[in-house]
């Protein structure tokens, strides 16, 4: 039996948008700290290792932005297909971008 469709939107849209933004932020942070050793050392000093600081920053961005977007209602107004496309594109860009960066530089 084929599942039904009531045409509802995505209740989780704010955290989907927050996830996509966090994934892009994380990728940009990986590139930046690799290109600028001073940032790497600063991140080492914050939590004992730059990778730990990086992970904690991602958690803060994801949860913080998700909660902010949940209150605003802006993400709920986005078309569900756009939200899905944004998240999938961010993940694909992150994977390709990270591999290309470390393979080339």
């Amino acid at each position: 039996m084929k599942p039904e469709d009531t045409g509802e939107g995505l209740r989780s849209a704010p955290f989907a948008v927050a996830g996509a933004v966090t994934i892009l932020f994380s990728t940009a942070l990986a590139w930046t700290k690799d290109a600028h050793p001073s940032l790497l050392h600063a991140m080492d000093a914050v939590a004992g290792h730059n990778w730990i600081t990086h992970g904690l920053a991602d958690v803060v961005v994801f949860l913080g932005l998700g909660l902010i977007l949940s209150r605003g209602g802006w993400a709920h107004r986005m078309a569900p297909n756009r939200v899905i496309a944004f998240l999938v594109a961010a993940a694909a860009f992150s994977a390709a971008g990270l591999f290309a960066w470390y393979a080339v530089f």
Partner: protein
Amino acid sequence: MKITVSDVVLLAHSACGVVGILAAAGVFVDTLNARAENARRIRTLAIVTAVCMTVTWIVGGYWYVHFYPMDRALILHGPWPFAHTVFMETKEHLFFTTLILSWYLPMAAADSLSTNAAARKMVLCVAMLIVLSGLAIEGSGAIINHGVKVALLDVRAKTGR
């Protein structure tokens, strides 16, 4: 037989990752045929995915910070330095994408999947991304492991010990 703390931590890290990938694959398969009857199982598997990936992050992070520097030194002086410079660097940062997706999966699965086509599509996409990125990360782990192995074999060939 000698099993070190490093061995246990490393294997726990990859085992939790595999269970997380399998749970995400289960979410994908169940969502293809989402009904009111399997909604609870989909949500449970989505939570299992998030928990497993979180444990993988913490345990893998502990191993990476405390035990990996010696392996890294071996790899960088061995015949496969790209096992660290390309695959470990990509793996350790791509993992954050998998982690964020795995935390989002239970939120997406909380929607009424049997009646909401957009929610089903989102869960299918996120579960598939977790499976694909997780497999890429597991494969990178195998390449890193082989990088250590060929480095040790190289040392043995050069020194005769």
